[in-house]
């Protein structure tokens, strides 16, 4: 299968994602510059982490108007797999491909550490390789990861099983101390209603090789591969 990794000015996790897809998973991968308008026939699209456009105005607010974004929206509407990691999640929210928005961490601190993240369920193309309630060790690195939406939206996200990842302690409990950014209802990653667009703040691509301390993130990419074969 063929992957596209979008590069915005200020993206800085694009090469990490490319490396995992190409060298760890043996996939065909293209970098796609944000000024391009074609995804080169990609089956799956990754919007990587970073600080697109310097996070000016709001994180992702300017990137959503990039020339490549109509093609991303078209692919999403057609059921294609779209994965937004960190800044990519912020861009997907600003672009309206995911509900809600990510705001400044409640602590005001930029949090850069490996933390426990609980898998809510395996019934998605992004989590089929995991078990319900499994606690992953994934790195986060963000100043604006506090997920905000109105109560009706939050209720709907849980009701329709769109919440795939939440912050927890190592035992899988959603304690206030385990929430690194004040995210509403401990949300770390959500999909759209159709389940083909995922945004998450933790970085699975930084936890996809044992030598880096954790390969808990590899299951996310492996799940996508499995869904494409099925």
């Amino acid at each position, binding site marked *: 299968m063929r992957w596209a990794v979008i590069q915005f000015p200020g993206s800085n996790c694009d090469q990490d994602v490319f490396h995992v897809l190409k060298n760890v998973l043996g996939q065909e991968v293209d970098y796609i510059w944000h000024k391009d308008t074609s995804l080169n026939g990609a089956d799956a699209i990754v919007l990587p982490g970073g600080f697109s456009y310097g996070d000016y105005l709001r994180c992702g607010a300017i990137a959503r*108007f990039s020339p490549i974004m109509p093609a991303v929206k078209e692919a999403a509407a057609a059921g294609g797999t779209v994965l937004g990691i960190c800044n990519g999640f912020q861009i997907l929210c600003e672009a309206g491909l995911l509900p809600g*928005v990510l705001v400044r961490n409640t602590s*005001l601190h930029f949090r850069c550490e490996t933390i426990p993240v609980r898998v809510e369920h395996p019934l998605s193309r992004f989590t089929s390789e995991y078990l319900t309630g499994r606690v992953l060790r994934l790195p986060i690195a963000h100043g604006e990861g506090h997920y905000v939406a109105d109560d009706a939206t939050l209720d709907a996200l849980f009701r329709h099983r769109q919440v795939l990842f939440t912050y927890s302690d190592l035992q899988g409990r959603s304690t206030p101390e385990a929430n690194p950014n004040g995210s509403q209802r401990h949300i770390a990653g959500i999909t759209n209603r159709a389940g083909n667009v995922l945004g998450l703040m933790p970085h699975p691509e930084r936890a996809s090789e044992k030598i880096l301390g954790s390969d808990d993130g590899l299951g996310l990419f492996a799940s996508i591969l499995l869904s494409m074969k099925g």
Partner: protein
Amino acid sequence: MIRAQVIVRPRKSIFDPQGDAVCRAIRHLGVSAVKEAHVGKCIELELEGDDIGAARAQLETICRDLLSNPVIEDYVLTLQPGDGK
């Protein structure tokens, strides 16, 4: 020419960590009468032309789509004739 000012501020229902930190700092400095602070943005624009109605129509779209995110922010747009300086 026309001068426009856009004030973008966090919606009341959204917790504003920056505002909270500013409020605490002010109170720490002894001004305990301050009970709330909200931190937003002020964006100033200069436009060609003198049709304020047309400029407002164009800028309302920009305010909604780019300068603010209605999920978390409100904005106030004001326009006035500029002096061309």
